[in-house]
């Protein structure tokens, strides 16, 4: 699954730590999501969607092998 969390985070000028604080997760989790190593739960995806004020479908995108 691809995502553009890194781009959206840059748009809001947030560090990984600041974004992590906003959605109450660890910085490692944000890092892992951005690197595509970890697919967040629906709850976390919705929290990210709220922070970036964008629908989940615009933040995450399925790949052909998903």
């Amino acid at each position, binding site marked *: 699954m691809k995502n553009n969390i890194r781009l959206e985070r840059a748009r809001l000028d947030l*560090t*990984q730590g600041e974004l*992590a604080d906003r959605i*109450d*997760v*660890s*910085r*490692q*989790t944000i*890092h*892992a999501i951005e690197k595509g*190593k*970890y697919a*967040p*739960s629906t*709850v*976390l995806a919705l929290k990210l969607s709220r922070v970036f004020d964008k629908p989940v479908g615009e933040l995450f995108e399925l790949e052909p092998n998903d």
Partner: protein
Amino acid sequence: MDSINTSYYLPHYCKKIGWILAGLSIVVYLSLFILVNILEFISIIKANAYVSPFLPILLTVGMAMIISSREKREDEMIRLIRLKSFQYGIYAAVVLFIYSIIFETGTLMLLHQGIIDGHNEYWVILGFMLMELGSIPGTLFVILVIYHAYLFKAGKDEE
């Protein structure tokens, strides 16, 4: 929603205490082992390998505290990492258990047949030490290493 219940974890500060206990036990264990062997080598004492039973207990408690302590921020990814490392711990426990059974049976057979003398064979003592460390501490060690390896991999480079 899916809130994470962390009430059954130890407080975060217990992690530091765990590292101190585990580190201390390894240092004292190795120091004693080397000291006793040097003393034996220069014939001051006659002992093959003296190891205080207190030290493996300290090591086990230390590792258990590290693994069971709450992270600063327990989230869903940490929960997944815990699950993965515990799965590896199960594999390790099975392997170490099989090793213990095979080693114990083999050694007892050799002792009964008089092929080895359990009091003077270094490898027998080493094997029994590994057996002692092999079951619970070995499993905890595998969980500890895998858990921290995943944590490290997840967040090794800041932005």
